[in-house]
Structure formats: C-alpha cells, structure tokens
C-alpha cells in the first residue's frame, strides 16, 4: 500500500492528523520525519500519547526516512508521512520522488517573513519558490487542512 498522505504540518502530530485524516484514510502507521523529535526519547514519548489503538508511529530524520520510504511504500501498512517543514519534505522528494507523488500542505502558521495564503497556510516567497520547484520536479502540491475541505492548488497560493 503506498503512502496514503504526505503532509507538511508544523504542529506535527495532533487531532487533525490522527483523527481528521487518520480515520477516513484508515491510516495504521504515521511516520514523523523530524530531526529534533527523532533525537529525543522524551518528545517521542509525548507524541506516542496521541496515537490511538490500531495505529503506530515511527520517528526518523530525513536521511533515515529516505532510506526506508520505498519499503514503507511497498508494505501492507497505510502510511501517513508527516513533516514539520517544507525543507524536510523537499529532501524526501529529492531522495525518493517516486514515493512522494503528492504533497498536502496541512498547517504552516504565521512567522516573520511569511504572509497569509490561507488561514492555515502562511508562506514566505522563498518557501513558495521551494514548493514550485517541488511541483516542477513532479510532486502535485495542494493545501487542504481536512478531508472535508476543498483542496487548493499551489498556483492559487501566490
């Protein structure tokens, strides 16, 4: 079963991910790709608290995730791949573009230098350029915070 959702969300694991997407997509494995969390047993313990019965979570940095993504993509698990930053997702796409075919912008919140594109998506011009490059190299990118909301294509974000 392929990766059923590749999502960028700066809140990482939270209700929209586990419940909002996890249930309708019948996700049984969340792969959280974040170097800080991958290096911290304490942070991993916190995020495990959010995982319901019947779902598992793995933690990896981008290099380890890139190595294992083809295996996850070929496994029987329904995988939700989650990163907190555009840069991490871009690294994964560069390493295994055949797995990262579609990218969901789920939550990128306000920071200095970013401007609002949607209420849940703030991007700097540089980040927008990175996303355009991702799309140019084969990924289909859309913003959609929950399955019930309409996806918004990258070209509509700026």
């Amino acid at each position, binding site marked *: 079963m392929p990766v059923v959702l590749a999502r960028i969300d*700066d*809140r*990482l694991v939270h*209700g929209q991910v586990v419940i909002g997407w996890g249930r309708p997509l019948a996700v049984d494995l969340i792969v959280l790709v974040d170097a800080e969390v991958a290096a911290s047993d304490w942070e991993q313990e*916190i*995020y495990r608290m*959010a995982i319901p019965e019947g779902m598992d979570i793995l933690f990896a940095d981008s290099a380890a995730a890139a190595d294992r993504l083809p295996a996850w993509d070929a496994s029987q698990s329904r995988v939700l791949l989650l990163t907190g930053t555009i840069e991490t997702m871009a690294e994964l796409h560069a390493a295994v573009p055949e797995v990262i075919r579609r990218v969901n912008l789920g939550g990128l*919140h306000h920071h200095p230098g970013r401007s609002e594109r949607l209420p849940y998506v703030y991007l700097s011009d540089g980040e927008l350029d990175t996303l355009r490059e991702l799309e140019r190299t084969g990924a289909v990118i859309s913003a959609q915070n929950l399955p019930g909301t309409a996806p918004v294509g990258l070209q509509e974000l700026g």
Partner: protein
Amino acid sequence: MTAVLRGVVAAHGEVAAGLVRAVEDISGIRGALVPVSNTDCDRGELERRIADAMANGPGIVFVDMPSGSCLFAALHDLRGWTGVRVVTGVNLAMLLDFVFHRELPVETAVARAVETGARSIVVR
C-alpha cells in the same frame, strides 16, 4: 507563605475563553485563570502562549484533550518549570474548585481539582 497559584486553560478554538468566562460568571473571581487558544499558531507559538500565561508558575495548566497540540505544548514547557502541573480533561467543575483553592500547595490543589472534575462526570 505559599504563593497564589496561577491557572492557565489551554484548549482548541474558543473552548478556553468560554470556560474561563463561565468560571468568572459563576464564582465572581476574575483574573485567576488565563485562557489560551491553539488557533492560528504553530507548536512554538503555542508553547510561548502557554509559557507567557503561566509566567513561571507555580500553578496548573488545564488542557482539554489527553493528547494533541495543547498538551504537547504544555508538556514541552513543563520541562523548564518547577511547581507547575498539567491536567488534561478540563471541565467547569475542576476549574471552579481550583479558583477557590489557589492558596494551597500545588500538589494539594491539583489533587482536589482532579477529584472534583472526575466526580462531576455522572450518568443518571
């Protein structure tokens, strides 16, 4: 003398503001609880909102869900605090108990609040 405890309510959307307003309306005690919403912010900003509201404590952070962004942010902040506890499953009964017992030691106040909150859940 024990410092008066601070109370922070961190929850999704407008839940915290509504609970705090209700506590104030019922108890007449204002300013004992600070509401924090997770709306429109990332993890770092939510941690800052909770930390600013707690102001190093001592006190209790009441969060809505036993998992999720509010709990994670509060637990992240908790590493830098002493005399602060985090309680999940906030409800009106536990908050009302808390605002009347803010001069107790934090461990006593948190035990009371949790017991009161749990006792308020009944099926008839």
